């Protein structure tokens, strides 16, 4: 199985559905150690991504050649233009970087592994967070690593492994003391809470796994 434009679109739509369904949960996490807007931020952004997909964004001017890369890049631009906050530029840059790394009409697991790594690189370049800082990096990094490790087993297996790793990485943020983002202002009081961005990253990888499930 390859990642084609249909699967990419399915991924983005599944992600939109997930963040919308989980808006309250994401916001609750952000209320505990942040400013209570992560859920509404992502719902707003992914609602705009959906609207863009419906309007044919991510294609050429005729709207025909919607490649995985162009779809992801367009979604990234939309997130940057509609989310705001920390997560807007971070997720937006991540998707743009992934999109740039996928120039072809379809992408194999190896190519997608590289693209996910580019995305992680963009998040780290922009935000300066390292693993253990209690941010989305703590979900994204193990997910990208798991995907790369299992890429040889095909898209479905690799996405599934990445989703599981992201979920685990997110859960592992609970005991951490935040060093980046708003939660860092709480100092030691940030420990004991799941990082909202790590939680939403897990949703994105679960959405990818859904979109790439064997039929």
């Amino acid at each position, binding site marked *: 199985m390859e990642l084609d434009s249909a699967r990419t679109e399915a991924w983005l739509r599944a992600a939109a559905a997930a963040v919308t369904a989980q808006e309250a949960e994401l*916001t*609750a996490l952000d*209320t505990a*150690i*942040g*400013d*209570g*807007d992560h*859920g*509404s*931020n992502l719902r*707003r952004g992914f609602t705009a991504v959906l609207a863009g997909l419906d309007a044919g964004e991510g294609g050429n001017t005729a709207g025909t050649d919607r490649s995985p890369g162009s779809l992801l890049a367009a979604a990234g631009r939309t997130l*940057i*233009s*509609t*989310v*705001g*906050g*920390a*997560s*807007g*530029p*971070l997720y937006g840059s991540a998707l743009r970087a992934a999109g740039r790394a996928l120039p072809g009409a379809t992408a194999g697991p190896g190519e997608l592994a590289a693209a996910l790594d580019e995305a992680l690189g963009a998040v780290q370049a*922009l*935000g300066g967070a390292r693993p253990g800082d209690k941010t989305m990096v703590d979900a994204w990094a193990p997910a990208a690593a798991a995907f790369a490790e299992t890429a040889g087993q095909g898209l479905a297996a690799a996405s599934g492994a990445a989703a599981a790793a992201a979920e685990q990485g997110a859960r592992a943020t609970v005991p951490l003391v935040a*060093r*980046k*983002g*708003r939660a*860092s*202002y*709480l*100092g030691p*009081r940030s420990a004991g809470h799941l990082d909202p961005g790590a939680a939403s990253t897990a949703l994105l990888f679960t959405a990818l796994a859904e979109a790439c499930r064997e039929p």
Partner: protein
Amino acid sequence: MKKLINSPETVVADALAGLAAAHPELAVDTAARVVRRARPGAPGKAALVSGGGSGHEPLHVGFVGPGMLDAACPGEVFTSPVPDQMLAAARAVDTGGGVLFVVKNYTGDVMNFALAAELAAEEDIEVATVLVDDDVAVQDSTFTAGRRGTGATLVVEKAAGALAELGAPLAEVAALGRRVNAASRSYAVALTAATVPAVGRPGFDLPEDEIEAGVGIHGEPGRRREPLRPARELAAEVVDTVLADHGLAPGDEVIALVNGMGATPLLELYVVFGEVAARLADAEVRIARSLVGNYVTSLDMAGFSLTLTRADAELLRLWDAPVATPALTWS
């Protein structure tokens, strides 16, 4: 949640409509979410653009006008604006003198303004940035997000706005802004939590006899809980915390801002100011200028912050310079 809103989704748009109706001297672009002076600054004047999440009113939209900001970009509640807004603002207010972004130091604000600066540079708009990070409650190191920007933002915007109005070039205005920020320290305590409309309940629960000390302006809890005490003791603690970090010497002069967090009655803010003034007098720090009121707020949070900016002749001159904005006006 009891709020005078139509819905959490429309609160920012609705407030902008009200701002436009109330202030014909402002041009409010509700689509681009840019608030600017209806009458643009002089050609070649360095233009000041600020912005940040909504919920801190009058910051920033209430500080747009002659002598202060040229434009403000309000984001969603407690959410930094998107780069498109700052780019639209920069395009609208640049008259050839370039644009100064006044950015409160939060990861989101910093990144979104940085992206906007890149985009503006691509359009040959000269951009400089002043980062405001005055909150001593937050540890500052290269491994953290650094100090938050809070009350000092008002002082930076006022002083830099005045200098820009005098015709100083962008680089000088930026340097002054950085100098004012470096001369400023703030600290805040909260008696109640803010309720974000989209969340629907307070950000944290506080018992009747406890406060959060070292809070920010985004509804987040503070560094620690403390017992509620008389205003005198709270003010003393806040003054001492700021002084300990500030390194002011006896004889130094300051601009002092006692700022309400949005739901604090003015009667109480004056009580606090009296205690702050007494404590500063003990420390032989002279209050050269002061401001008491709800200026850099956190929705419906009760509590106060203190900002002290070391003053010198130039800064006082800029502080005293005329300003005509919805929230700050003198001549």
